[in-house]
């Protein structure tokens, strides 16, 4: 059964019809990617999933449960955790405080301590800088922190919004390596990316979204070879 399912979702910003009949499924243990150009509706889709924007029509299910009745802050406790676009770490708080806030909904101190240890193993750089203000970290380190912060909530499904944005090519590679590592550890991931080539190489399945509609869905490998996708999103 699908872990996360968007069923015929429409969304509006005022009068602007931003999402038109979007249906997406993410199965347990998958990396699914959502690719598309600027303004196609990728981030809007994530917003409707995390509950900050309500769908005007259609429903979103997590393990068969309708999420419509939950306010945004409770959707986090259901296991859907977002790493926001542009990282958005709490710049004036230390690395440690950022991680602590990631575990805001958790009441299990022992599990939090375990999680911190795991995250520090995955990103040793964060451990070195645990007392430093997050705003003084480099872009790549901030991306690590943003991911670490999301992992503190023990997500069932992780929503990554353009994790490679604004990073140097070397760092982009390491970000995607991290995504693969997380996947290997059993985290289900919905990845929104403009860097279509990298995203499709990492993901198992992909959706192509254009002006608020899903125009293509297929295995990532097949999408990589699709002429239209190559032309429109990879500049071939």
């Amino acid at each position, binding site marked *: 059964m699908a872990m996360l399912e968007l069923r015929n979702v429409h969304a509006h910003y005022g009068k602007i019809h931003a999402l038109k009949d979007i249906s997406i499924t993410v199965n347990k243990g998958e990396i699914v990617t959502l690719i598309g150009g600027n303004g196609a509706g990728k981030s809007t889709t994530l917003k409707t999933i995390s509950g900050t924007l309500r769908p005007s029509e259609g429903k979103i299910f997590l393990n068969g449960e309708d999420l419509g009745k939950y306010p945004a802050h409770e959707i986090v406790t259901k296991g859907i955790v977002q790493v926001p676009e542009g990282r958005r770490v709490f710049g004036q*708080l230390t690395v440690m405080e950022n991680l602590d806030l990631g575990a*805001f*909904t958790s009441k299990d101190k022992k599990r939090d301590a375990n999680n911190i240890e795991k995250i520090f193993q995955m990103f040793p750089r964060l451990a070195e800088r645990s007392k*430093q*203000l997050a705003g*003084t*970290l480099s872009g790549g380190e901030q991306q690590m922190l943003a991911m670490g*912060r999301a992992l503190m*909530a023990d997500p069932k499904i992780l929503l990554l919004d353009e994790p490679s944005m604004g990073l140097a090519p070397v760092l982009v590679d390491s970000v995607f390596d991290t995504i693969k590592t997380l996947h290997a550890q059993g985290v289900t991931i919905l990845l929104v990316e403009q860097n279509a080539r990298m995203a499709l190489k990492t993901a198992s399945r992909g959706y192509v979204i254009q002006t608020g509609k899903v125009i293509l869905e297929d295995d990532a490998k097949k999408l990589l070879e699709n002429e239209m996708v190559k032309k429109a999103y990879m500049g071939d």
Partner: protein
Amino acid sequence: MTKAQSLWNHGVKIGAIGGVSVLVICLIGMVESFGKRFIIAGYLPMGVTIALIISMFAAFIAAKKTPIPEKSIQFANAVMSGFVTSGLLAIFVIIGRSIKLRVVFVEASPVLYNILTGGISGAGGIFILLFAGLLCGAFSGLLIVLTDLPRKLIINAIATVFALGLLQELILPILNSWDLGVTNYLAGLFYTLNGLTPIGAILAVIIFCILYLLWHANQNTIKTKYSNLPKATQKKTKYFGLLILAIILIFLPQFLGLFLSEVLTIVGLYVLLGLGLNIVVGYAGLLDLGYVAFFAIGSYVVALLTSPQIFDIGLNFWQALPIAVICGILAGVMLGIPVLKMRGDYLAIATLGFGEIIRILVLSDFLKPWLGGAQGIGSIPNPNFMGFLMVKPQHIYYLILAGCILVVFISLRLKNSRLGRAWMAMREDEDVAQAMGINLVATKLLAFATGAGFSALSGAIFASKIGSVYPHSFNVFISINVVCIVIIGGIGSLPGIVVGAAALMGLPELLREFADYRMFVYGVALVIMMLLRPEGLLPEVRHKIELHDETETGTQTAAQP
């Protein structure tokens, strides 16, 4: 522009800024009205002192900004700045003596010219004025040329004398109240009825220098000794310090007279208000400019419940107090709900409006039968503590002290709580905070409610202290005062707020000449603070790191790829 010109540029420019600043404080009458108070009796009136300090400061900055760090050029630039400052004033005096400037500037009086020229008419006075400017410049130049230790020593010694002179009305009554041989002798030695004695000023400088040098020589050994102590002993020392502070706070009103205790209660009420606003602004990052509304609500609830006028419900203060606080909290939630979605400037304007709405409602004829209208509500009984009537400010002081301790305790606990962390996250980034699972609605409303509760507590004490409430006691300036206290003291820092309240509320009460220039002084203080110490007088550690260590940590990260 040639190179030589650009070298002098700073001296002339900053000197001119200094000159214009002094001119402004002359023309608004500050120099003249402060001229009646002396820092050093018979020699140095306060108005002149302020003018001198401004020109010295300008010269100091001019020298510091000199593009070439060569001492002779820096010195020359300082002198140049001082000369330009006094030159501008000299031109002003010459023009003022030949044309009647008073038609436009009411304060441009002959008395002012006399003050500026040292009381000498004609060319001699102008010469003295210019000479004073040169001296100021030379003095600042000397400070720049000197090494660190003597510079700090001189600046702090001058500040000490200035503070001692300024705080005469604080220190002298305390010395006199003891009426011992020693204190009477000290009072006579240091103070006249208006300002320090010259001998007192010199003694103060000497004593300060000795203490400063002793501290400087031993500071490192003392610090290392302290940090070498075992943790338990360190803790004990800390508790001992707290104990001494507590003893001082408990016995403080016994040393202070009626007037100073009254000042202390005003400071205390503002500390309460500041601590409350600190939760809203400092912790949660919501700029609330209508904070006076809750103060008014606290006051009016106590007034209505305890005063025999209007309803004659006849509760006593202690029964009314919790009701007042609860009403304040409810009002905080009521304000919070409509402004939930607002941020930054919009929130500030909306809350400003809320403050005015409450004041106008209270003032209105429509609600007069219930709230007393412009006449307010009188004959509020004083609080009665176990049969003991708290009448004097000395008694009210203990009530306020208890309130402050309670509020400090709650603030400290909240800061490190789950709620405190949620506030912190919300202050930084609302959207991400929500994505972390923080309930924004509840968190925001709790911030408004807590702050409003503290404010209502302050208002309740205020009403029973004054014995009457009037709408005009609750104008927007109270909100502005409290915001200034929080910003100047240091946003988020509890000791900072106490210091801010003492500086912004206590000092003007001690220096009544300030009253006319209160808002002017606040404005200047805010601008200076934002330029020199944006984190506040006693900042919270976090803000200090953020605003000052950026370069340090920045290079650290840059060094590692």
